[in-house]
């Protein structure tokens, strides 16, 4: 039973990872691409890890390690996204031309 549930989680995670990668290619500018990769790849990878945790059992050496990996991933992946987005904005990477508004530009040019 736990093998079936674990496999389902792993398959769902792989699906989200694929969507993240498609988003990385399809979306127009760097900020939208960061959105797709951060969200989809974080949950996708967490789902794969959770699946392997269900597979192996929770209170085993592998299960606990996977759990720590999930916590580490959730805490650090958004931080990397902030760093990339902020670096891109400061070094002057333009938004997509159909973007609606850019409050950051307005505030910093004042």
């Amino acid at each position, binding site marked *: 039973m736990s093998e079936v549930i674990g496999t389902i989680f792993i398959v769902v995670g792989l699906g989200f990872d694929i969507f993240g990668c498609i988003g990385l290619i399809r979306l127009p500018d760097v900020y939208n691409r960061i959105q797709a990769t951060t969200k*989809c790849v974080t949950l996708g990878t967490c789902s794969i890890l959770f699946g392997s945790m269900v597979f192996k059992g929770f209170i085993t050496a592998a299960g*606990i*390690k996977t759990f720590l990996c999930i916590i580490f991933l959730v805490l650090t992946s958004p931080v990397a996204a902030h760093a990339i987005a902020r670096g891109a904005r400061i070094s002057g990477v333009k938004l997509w031309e*159909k973007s609606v508004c850019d409050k950051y530009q307005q505030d910093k040019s004042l």
Partner: protein
Amino acid sequence: MMKSSIILFIIYFIIWTLLGFSFDLQHILIGIMVALFVVFLTGDLFTLRPSHFGRVTRYLWFCYYVPVFIWECIKANVDVALRVNPKLPINPGIVKVKTVLRSDTALTFLANSITLTPGTLCVDINPREGILYIHWIDVKSEDTEKATQLIVKRFEKILKRIFE
């Protein structure tokens, strides 16, 4: 200072034990030594106000925060996955929101939560005035007040109870 070192030591030791996951004397002794060394190195970097660790209500609110966060995270993923279709239904822009949170930990958690929830990505932050610049994949309102209502309010109340 002393208190925060002790809290850090306990956290490091728990992480060491869980990573190694073997409970004989050798591993535990080495764990204590390593944890002491890392506490000596990182010292008072992480816990600035150790008195906050003592209150039970904060942990209860954190337990409430985790399922809320996971639910928002799953919604975010379905949302972004649906936007990758050939028509590209996106409407991006950078908006400005205000928050009442001021402490570093609370702001970090708020920014992380915002980044992992539907269509929003924190680009820059102004901690003194509590202003966050947020890249929104589908801008519903350019107005600061309304954007704040839509993006920040969900987490702000809970995070205020946990970290402030």
